[in-house]
């Protein structure tokens, strides 16, 4: 599709992409105690980026996120692995997580846990892998 050929799709996706990303963010944070989490949030975000790629083109997506998606996958895996391994230094079993309650400005009393960092790793890995696959297929004519 040549650039600028579908004005409706492009204008609507500009808005919808942010709604999807916001929902992904919500899913990501709610994931610890209820349905959601890094995996589904990652897929959702990748879906938003895919919509962008469909409405505009792959070059636009590359301009929006100027990183190599393979590296994003690697960073995500590294974060997840390091969080799991962190437990070993405290003499706990592998993947054991820690949590605590903190008084944060604006949010008030908040539960913070290391499982969230692990989930961030999962999120990045999922976004990275999905986008790598989609873009590789997309480039192949």
């Amino acid at each position: 599709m040549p650039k600028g050929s579908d004005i409706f799709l492009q204008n609507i996706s500009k808005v919808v992409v942010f709604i999807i990303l916001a929902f992904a963010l919500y899913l990501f944070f709610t994931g610890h105690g209820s349905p959601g989490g890094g995996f589904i949030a990652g897929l959702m975000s990748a879906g938003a980026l895919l919509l962008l790629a469909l409405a505009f083109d792959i070059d636009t997506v590359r301009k929006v996120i100027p990183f190599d998606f393979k590296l994003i996958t690697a960073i995500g895996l590294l974060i997840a692995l390091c969080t799991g391994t962190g437990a070993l230094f405290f003499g706990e079993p592998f993947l054991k997580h820690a949590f605590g309650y903190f008084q944060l400005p604006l949010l008030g009393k908040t539960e913070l846990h290391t499982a969230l960092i692990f989930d961030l790793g999962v999120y990045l890995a999922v976004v990275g892998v999905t986008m790598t696959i989609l873009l590789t297929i997309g480039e192949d004519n």
Partner: protein
Amino acid sequence: MNNWVVAPLLIPLFTAVILIFLHNKLKLQRWISLISSMLNVCVAIYLMVQVRTTGIQTLNMSGWAPPYGIVLVADMFAVLLVLAASIVSACCLLYSFRGIDEERERHYFYTLVHFMLAGVNGSFLTGDLFNLFVCFELMLMSSYALIVLGGTKRQFRETLHYILINVLSSTLFVASVAYLYGATGTLNLAHLSMRIAESGQTGPITVVSALLLVVFSVKAGLFLFFWLPGSYGAPPAAISALFGALLTKVGMYALIRTFTLIFYHEVQVTHMLIGTMAVATIILGGFGAVSQTNVNRILGYNVIASIGFISLALAVSNHDALQGAVFYLVHDMIVKALLFLLAGILVAETGTERVNRMGGVLSHSPLLGWMFLIASLAVVGIPPLSGFPGKLLIIQGSIEDGQYILAAAGVILTLMLLYSLIKIFILGFWGKARRPREAHWKQSRKLLLSSAPLMMLIIFMGVFAEPVMPYVQRAADILTDPSIYIQAVFKE
């Protein structure tokens, strides 16, 4: 709780991820891979010593007690295989520094190998059926990428077969795991064993066990092996060696583990089936090896035939036979890797894979010839080498049980494999040199050096079988008495 149990998984995983960042720096990649694989061997040895002195080591992941959480179990059987896998992969990596072209190295070859190794080690160590599936997938995903890496026409064709058959069997795997969970309400291997022992191995559970038998047989190449010889011959030698040494053995490990720990009540159905498949595999694999003229295909059929041979021991399942199975499994991993690596050099020297177009390699690279001969003799099981104790124990075990047909099949197989490998030796190494390739000699010398540790190991395991035996015995004790495994998992 012992966090060392997870180390054989963590080291390759970390290495794989770090190597993604360094995929353009080839020298650095090689060094990191080598150091990591050496580290893995050390950790495996340390674990083995721990298991010998203090018994089975377990780790409840993230602190959830079994059967609620996922547990990693390092018993002697698993640890021996982890050690063998680490040694084999270290040698294959060393070989690939020279044996793999830079283009492949740049396209994440080392990353994929380490991911595969993590999957292999994970499959050996896990104490949970679903986790076993996950580790299988990790291993298979990497192997899909490794087999197609380089993208020649032949690789694409074989990859298609390989992926289709494996995706199909993985689907069946998940389905049978679901059935089993529905029937018993647990997926922890030790807990499954307890539940099934309590309720009896009823008809439906035996059917599920047969489904799992099919799944693991596809992965191991037991009877359902039609995809194997082609697929394993397609990629370069270092990758074929890893596949031939590790992938089928993981399937074999899963078969032995599930059918000695969980489904051991209806022996007349399941083990009878395994015995029949084993004999069929031996006959078909043996004839395949004899009839082929392509070096890689001959070796592929050798892999299949030895899987059939190990399954004989599983069909008999007495202490002697299982001891033989453990010994032979470790030996087979090492010797198959060695054979594939040497065949890779042979093919590079002669420029052809067909044995009847080769000849005279012995005159300009005698070391390669003699190493190949010793490796072949080890496969066959000539006494001072490592194939002998395992073979003897398996055949002895089947005769003790009155399974004369199985024993006879094992002996006949030995002769067939001897013929197929000696055919390579005579046609490839004797006679007049058809294609002198002096230029290749320098490189192949370094390649020979990297396969030398495997060579020494098969001699060591044969000559010093006596000190190795206590370890093997310990492994077989657990396989014949599931309660040892169950107690170790639930002790905390």
